[in-house]
């Protein structure tokens, strides 16, 4: 066990855990965050995605010990129900979810993409989301929401 300080959604947290513990378990079990979720535990589906230094990582296969001092953003770090982030608002407007379990992967990959590339093509979006799954297959709405976000962000 060792004491590790993480900055999550702008707040510093210190936890005393085995540094090999997957970041996801710390985020969900210790910090009680609901955005990142256990999908596969293998880094294959994206449900556990968080953003670190502008890039997405799979928190289920990332040892928490490697995250010392890192600034981590989860889905709930973007906005709230009362003040949703424009990307979240776009997903709400397009009703782009069914069970919602995949949203950390889909939305945070989309955010990282549009932050880096404000004018993504369909191919860019496909490429950026190629590592995440949505098993309810809300793909058409999600793509609409992402394009809407990119469009409104630019405007």
């Amino acid at each position: 066990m060792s004491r590790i300080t993480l900055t999550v959604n702008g707040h510093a947290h210190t936890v005393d855990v085995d540094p090999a513990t997957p970041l996801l378990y710390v985020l969900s079990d210790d910090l009680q965050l609901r955005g990142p979720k256990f999908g596969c535990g293998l880094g294959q589906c994206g449900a556990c995605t968080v953003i670190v230094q502008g890039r997405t990582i799979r928190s289920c296969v990332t040892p928490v010990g490697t995250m010392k001092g890192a600034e981590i953003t989860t889905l709930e770090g973007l906005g709230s129900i009362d003040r949703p982030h424009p990307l979240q608002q776009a997903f709400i407007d397009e009703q782009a979810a069914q069970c919602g379990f995949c949203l950390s992967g889909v939305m945070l990959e989309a955010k990282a993409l549009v932050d880096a590339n404000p004018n993504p093509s369909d191919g860019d979006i496909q490429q950026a989301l190629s590592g995440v799954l949505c098993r309810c297959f809300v793909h058409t709405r999600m793509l609409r929401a992402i394009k809407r976000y990119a469009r409104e962000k630019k405007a």
Partner: protein
Amino acid sequence: MSAFSRREFLQATGALIVTFSSASILEPLAFGQGPFDTHASHVDPHQLDSWIAIAADGTVTAHTGKCELGQGMLTAQSQLVAEELSVPVARVRLIQCDTDLCPDQGTTSGSQSSPVNFNDRNLAQAAATAREALLGLAATKLGVAATDLTITDGTITATSDKTKRVTYGELVAGRKFSLPLSTTAKRKTAGEWKVLGKPVMRLDMAAMATGQFEYVHNVQVPGMLHGRVVRPPRLGATVVAVDESSVSHMPGVVRVVRRGNFVGVVAERQWQAAQAAQRLKVQWSGGGNLPAQGEFYGRLRTMKPSRDAFAVNSKDVDEKLRQAASVIKATYLYPYQAHASMGASCAVADVDDGKATLWSPTQSVYPTRSGVAMLLGLPPESVHVIFTRGSGCYGLNAADTVSYDAALLSHAVGRPVRVQLTREDEFRSESYGYAYVIDQRIGIDHDGTILAWDYEAWWPSLGFRPGYDKPGNVITGFLAGFEPERVAAQTAGEVVTFQNRINPAPSYVSGCVGGNCGGAGKVRSERVLAHTVPSSFLTGPLRAPNRVQNTFAHESFIDEAAAHVKADPVAYRLRHLKDERLIEVVTQAAKAAGWDARPSPKPTVGGGSASGRGIACVAYSGDNGYVATVAEVEVDRARGQVRVKRFVVAHDCGPISNPEGLKNQIEGGTLQGMSRALGEEVTWDDQNVTSVDWGTYHSLGFEFEVPAVESVLINRIGVPATGAGETAITVVAAAIGNAIFDATGTRIREVPFTPQRIKTALAAKTYL
């Protein structure tokens, strides 16, 4: 909070409560019981009795036994209550699927996924009962006739004198009313709807999109430990010995638990439990010896025992086939597929001192209560199951089994335990959707009309939903010593009534039994015989169970018949259909797609890429929803890859409760159907299942080109609403297969249509 104390609480400030205690539950299911139905309701009228309570502040609390699984039921049911009570949706609080608070409505299953099917005769009827009672109270209070009153936003106003008005809250305040459900309270018709029928946004959407929504994975209770399971490395293996010392030294490990062949570990932290489960040394014996996958379909035909049943048998099929100008035949193959939910399943149990509480993503809280009670040797009344949403399930994923896992582990340690299954745990031993072998034969006369249709199928089954008394139907119960339902031999007997619930009969036969013709089509010579045979793997309902498989075979084969007589696939279907609603969706889909009327295949065009269009339709479960889908595809001949460019879906589920929710279901069902048609297949070697992660079980991801899904919604008011959760997915594989044939002249008769299979078929010119 118990039901009684909840009522006391409500009554403390005044309330109007509609109960079913004196009326008893009303036809909890819209359909008769059958092997694919939810189980009969087991309501105890003395334990729970309220559907609806209107509090003195005007808020409406409704209790439902049908749960939100991601399909939009929370919103649609809230609309249903709001509609009948003439209040805004926001004033309705829906309490879902809690065995201490809600009535037993069996299973929330997709094949009956319509709020009106679910709650037409009970929840909505309770709301209508409350509305009539409130109108009566208002008439007395305002001194006008009830017929003079109108309701807007929970305020009742006299039409003749608008100054005479009273709110629900004012009527209820300080008084207590307890009404039995009135079976005669008048329901609003679809023509009167103001809340239903509108594209109301999902009530849970903002919470999901902002990461605030609490899934079962997020449930934490004081003192909670973490559990993991250790499943057999070979299917059917049994435990010889568990070496606890292999993990007892590990930090945080609390207990190794064994119950028969069920093995699990409990630790203080999730990571500790995960590591201990990996390192625990268990000696297993036996198991494996699985049939080679390459020989699987052939073996199904000879498996015993076999449960045989005709859906229809006109007894003249052999004769008509002999008389036919031509006979065509084909065999269709459909693999086991996994529910493959986005999130591996999770549940939390707190078992202590003869009582159990479960936070479970089950579709069936009361059956799960009974199953857990059997596993733990407790009376069902001592088990409280609180539905807490998991990942989308699409049927019997591991939600029930993980609830049993949590219950067993918590029972062993006497503390709350959260169990998270691994992806591999779930892929290896969930209850797969059925594999099928289907032989089809059609006799065609000189003018191209189908004279006779002969269907014979074999499908393997083991287990099913656990229901109220069969916990062995899912893996945990089985490992813990309970038996699953096994196929029992049965000879096909006389057909008493025609029913097409799992769509073994094609839409083109007349379904005539004893003078009554319940089929959707015109073909009078008809024989539909299915053999249910033993399965090596546990099986259970997966979205549109059996209907997807049967419809793939029927809608591919009608296309083969059309091609045989060089008829346009749409015209040929219409020629053999009689059901007006099915005819309507076929016509509408073709129209919206700009259907190019001509026989398939398309005249050959050279080049590496071929394009084509295909159609497929179904009257889901015979009469529970109507859909026709046109698929437009491009086939890369060299690589064997299929890209669907466009889907057009015409859909009729009666009066539409929420067009936005319906479109979402149609789009998702269609694309999920595409994934199942193009990629998904459970694979195994001689020891165990080998499709154990997203690298080996092929779900279409975002890397594929997402086709447009254009929905044509037929809003048919004046008929009962039907299901909409499983209609669209049912026709997708056939629509794509027919489009591939149109593009290439090659028929693919085995799902999934992998590049390898397509290349092989193109090389062999499979068709005719």
